[in-house]
């Protein structure tokens, strides 16, 4: 069961504001999505979790410095810039 409160909580985590009718719409959709996961209940408990769907492992890079981006390009798409910094909202909580 997905409740209205669950939807609002998840929306808050995603910093999204929902109208009441949207909350109900997402509640129904979430419920449907979660139903898909019921299939996992059939898996016996001694099966190792899947962390990656292909067989690759230990893919590494050597510790050799490369080029960073020129700052004009770094800041190019940002709307709010000051003294080479990105400007962001003031947030007190950590």
């Amino acid at each position, binding site marked *: 069961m997905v409740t209205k409160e669950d939807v609002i909580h998840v929306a808050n*985590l*995603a*910093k999204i504001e929902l109208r009441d009718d949207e909350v109900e719409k997402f509640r129904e959709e979430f419920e449907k999505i979660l139903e898909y996961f019921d299939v996992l209940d059939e898996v016996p408990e001694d099966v190792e979790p899947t*962390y*990656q769907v*292909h067989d*690759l*492992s*230990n*893919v*590494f*890079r*050597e*510790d*050799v*410095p*490369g*080029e*960073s*981006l020129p*700052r004009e390009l*770094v*800041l190019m798409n940002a709307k*709010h810039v*000051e*003294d*080479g*910094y*990105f*400007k*962001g*909202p*003031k*947030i*007190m*909580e*950590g």
Partner: protein
Amino acid sequence: MGYATSMEPDVIIGLEVHVQLNKLKTKLFCSCPLDYHEDEPNTHVCPVCLGLPGAMPVVNKEAVKAAIKVALALHAEVQPFTVFDRKNYFYPDLPKGFQISQYDRPLALGGYVTIETEEGEKKITLKRIHMEEDPGKLTYKGSITTAKYCLIDYNRSGVPLLEIVTEPVMHSPKEARLFLNKLRIILEYLDVFDGSLEGAMRVDANVSIRGGGRVEIKNISSFKGVERALSYEIARQKNLLRMGRKVERETRHFDEVNNITVSLRSKEEEQDYRYFPEPDLVPIYTAELLEEVKGTLPEMPEEKRERLKAQYGIGDNFAKVLVLDKVMADYFEEVAKHVDPKLAASWVVDVLRGELNYRGKDFRFAYEMLKPEEFAKLLRYFREERITEKGVVEVIRIKLDHGGDVDEIIRSRGLFAIPKEEIERLCREAIEKNPKAVADYKGGKKKALDFLVGYVMKATRGRANPAETAQILKKMLEE
């Protein structure tokens, strides 16, 4: 500090220590150079550490090896299989909207750090060690309260970070500080960490008093800060309990300016981070890396302490202090190559260390200003009685403050001790030229001797040893 520092079994402290592996050359998932401290904001960034769409992370092999090295040195169990996860939360220091960290498959479990408390040795046990990327840095123009927005620098974003989590086994702010000091020493021995760089080690502290809720204090950026934040927080919780009120489980922020902790009112809990395996990275099997790293573990502080005692015959009091800083221990060993090690140990620990501390410097500075060979030469002069103790100290100070050549300093300052024959000659001269003082002395006025000593001191511009001079004079007068 007027706060409680002694052991209190009811106070329970656990730490989460974030350590930058800042001796590496590149970030954890991209090739951006790590040496950003002196540089302009947002100049050490690329599509990967900016979280641009389509950019793919690739793990820095040396970072994993450095992490394994730390885990081994902390006696932790390196896991055969380890995975990166996404930790999701919205905060401007993370350009991607999540941090790549580790969750249920961390790099290592367990381990411990031994600290020396007044009650004796104590093992601070560890819960886990995992790898993650450092977030970017937020700054505020003016102060955090008056600024209207934050400025974001992503140079730090993606720096390889270790999170070392202790069990809740510490019982005083002082124990927490001892643990952090020891951890720093170990990390510096491993040559994976430079603690002198800003933000190199950051701490979250969990503290509770039996019967109360657990409070997490976030992001304390100095060792002193940890002790102060904990002391304040313990006093605050005790007050609440004394008044019969409840200590709420919450997250607080340490205000370094006012030395208080402030509630953050954030309600995010672990499940809210919605951890899931990072799909852009593949799992790591550690067996091969572990073998590679095992051969590269250097001598650790405890081993070094025992070796210094055995090899140089120095006391534990000196060995114990020398190993507190690997650079100091190295410096001592180089001096000890050229001069009696016991003499070297006491001068390095008791004098040079103090002079460096006084100047806010460490032994890296000594390597620059007073090389071990130069210090050894100075101590040899002292042993040969060509320079007094006071003279040695004076040369050390001049070398640390101005540099220059040891022999030249001794000569120009007239610090070479006067040979014994010269003192004797001056004593005879003093007696010959001051018949009245001699007569006074022989007549029972023992104070007249001081006058004769003063004559010799004046003639040598203070370089003669007064006690020795008095001895010589007495002997001559009584013959």
